């Protein structure tokens, strides 16, 4: 696709880096109010861009104002929440880690609750239905529909609770009923250590496909009844495995973790799409042209050489890019540099190429005028040159300027060999005759032409002129 030709590797890094920053903001703030407000700001911004696109001046202006104010408010109002998120985490967690939400599963809650009940010898009867409906088999019971928790289960079977003798039925993550009466088994060969709870558990398992957990009040031992069989539970791992098999969960990785992974993947994809959209709106949208005049910098000049002349001092760059980027261009971000490393004394011709020009990201060079620059170099030498006064104006009538003396009458000049070779006299700045009435002394500056010439250290840049004015003979 044609637009892909303009994407550089820096642009890809630009998009990925900012996508990751956005993704990390989501990971860090997703459970907070800050994230909700940030989402609101994002929608406001999108709305504002749409308003700008359709030329809704007032709407876009209002949206821009609201976005700015809300962005400021979010920092003030939610400063404590932001601080707590950032302070609670180290740098690694902020940049890389994924906060794990420790939400216990139904199986974990049941295992933990049963462990606690067993330890304290509190009798319990927990029914976990499978596919078959228990309505016709069990009797009584009080509907609860409460979310399952360790505390809830412990309190139900607490000895003073009116429903502690009955069974509870757990459906998904809720305690559906409490105080339920289960059908008793009529088996005669049950071991004597089993009591009524065990007989009830076995009874239900004989008539349905439910799993029943029993905690013995006398011994604190845990058993499960399923498919007319009673099995002793000897460890938490074994108990967990039996519950997982009953509930049809075969892998350790539970649904919650899978959901989390799915959410993160969606968030990552949305981040990339969002940032890519913003990037294109900034860097590619509404192509704009601008012309800038940029001074040419010369680098790597041999210190012995001196630039005595250039065909131009600045070049005009015709640049393109999105309106937003063009507006934000600062002239100091753009540089035109010519490498004089291979230049020689005399005239050198350089072509201005893309490599000579440094541009901000997202800005493209369309044309450069002129594309060729002539640079004349010379070797720097010192030369002692005689001085002469550059008189101007008119002497008052009847006077003659008969003689002058200049102190010093020579000066040492530093400059290009080619220039100094053609200069045999250095002149003062213009000295006016009009006010000379008689013999006297004046000070005059030296006129350094061309400007590339310099007075050597030790030589003076002012001279003293002693002049003799006489009356003109009749």
């Amino acid at each position, binding site marked *: 696709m044609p637009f892909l030709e303009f994407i550089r590797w820096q642009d890809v890094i630009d998009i990925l880096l900012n996508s990751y920053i956005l993704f990390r903001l989501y990971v860090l703030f997703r459970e907070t109010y800050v994230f909700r407000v940030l989402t609101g700001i994002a929608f406001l911004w999108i709305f504002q861009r749409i308003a700008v696109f359709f030329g809704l001046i007032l709407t876009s202006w209002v949206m821009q104002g609201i976005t700015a104010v809300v962005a400021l408010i979010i920092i003030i109002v939610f400063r404590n929440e932001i601080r707590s998120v950032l302070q609670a985490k180290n740098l690694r967690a902020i940049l890389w880690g994924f906060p794990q939400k420790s939400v216990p599963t139904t199986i974990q809650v049941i295992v933990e609750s049963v462990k606690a009940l067993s330890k304290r010898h509190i009798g319990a009867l927990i029914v976990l239905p499978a596919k078959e409906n228990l309505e016709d088999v069990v009797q009584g019971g009080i509907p609860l529909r409460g979310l399952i928790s360790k505390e809830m289960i412990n309190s139900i079977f607490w000895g003073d609770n009116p429903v502690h003798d009955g069974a509870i039925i757990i459906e998904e993550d809720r305690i559906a009923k409490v105080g339920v009466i289960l059908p008793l088994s009529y088996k005669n060969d049950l071991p004597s250590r089993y009591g009524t709870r065990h007989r009830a558990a076995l009874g239900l398992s004989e008539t349905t496909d439910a799993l029943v957990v029993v905690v013995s009040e006398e011994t604190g031992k845990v058993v499960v009844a399923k498919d007319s069989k009673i099995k002793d539970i000897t460890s938490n791992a074994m108990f967990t495995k039996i519950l997982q098999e009953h509930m049809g969960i075969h892998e350790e990785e539970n649904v919650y973790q899978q959901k989390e992974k799915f959410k993160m993947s969606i968030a990552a994809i949305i981040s990339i799409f969002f940032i890519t959209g913003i990037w294109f709106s900034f860097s590619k949208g509404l192509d704009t042209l601008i012309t800038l005049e940029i001074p040419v910098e010369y680098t790597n000049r041999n210190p012995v050489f001196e630039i005595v002349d250039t065909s131009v001092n600045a070049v005009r760059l015709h640049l393109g890019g999105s309106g937003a980027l063009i507006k934000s261009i600062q002239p100091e971000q753009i540089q035109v540099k010519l490498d004089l490393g291979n230049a020689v004394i005399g005239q050198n011709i350089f072509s201005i190429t893309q490599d000579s020009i440094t541009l901000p990201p997202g800005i493209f060079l369309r044309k450069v005028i002129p594309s060729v620059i002539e640079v004349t170099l010379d070797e720097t030498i010192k030369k002692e040159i005689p001085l002469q006064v550059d008189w101007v104006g*008119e002497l008052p009538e009847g006077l003659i300027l008969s003689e002058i003396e200049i102190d010093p009458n020579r000066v040492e000049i530093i400059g290009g060999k080619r220039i100094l070779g053609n200069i045999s006299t250095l002149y003062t700045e213009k000295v006016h005759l009009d006010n000379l009435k008689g013999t006297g002394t004046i000070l005059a500056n030296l006129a350094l032409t061309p400007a590339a010439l310099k007075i050597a250290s030790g030589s003076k840049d002012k001279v003293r002129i002693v002049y003799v004015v006489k009356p*003109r003979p009749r």
Partner: protein
Amino acid sequence: MCEEIKDLTPQNPAVVFSIKIGKVSCFTSFDPVPEKTFIYHNWFHRDDPSTKKRLTLQPPRWATYSTIQLRETDKGPWRVEISDQKGNLLRILRFSITD
């Protein structure tokens, strides 16, 4: 440098000459002159050569001069380089043409 030569004598020698005078002369005198020879008066307006005059010298001593007519564009600093026939620079005389 003088405004004019009268009876082989320079009149009103100076270092600044008004354009109104209309001409300026470079008077040179040599003593002794061992043999017939030539000298050159090289006139420069700033660093641009203006004119070059070849003048004869006769023994035993000799005075000679060269003159230029002044135009409006001749204002500014001038010098006359006096050299022998071998090109050796004998003297530089400096002056200005002003209003």
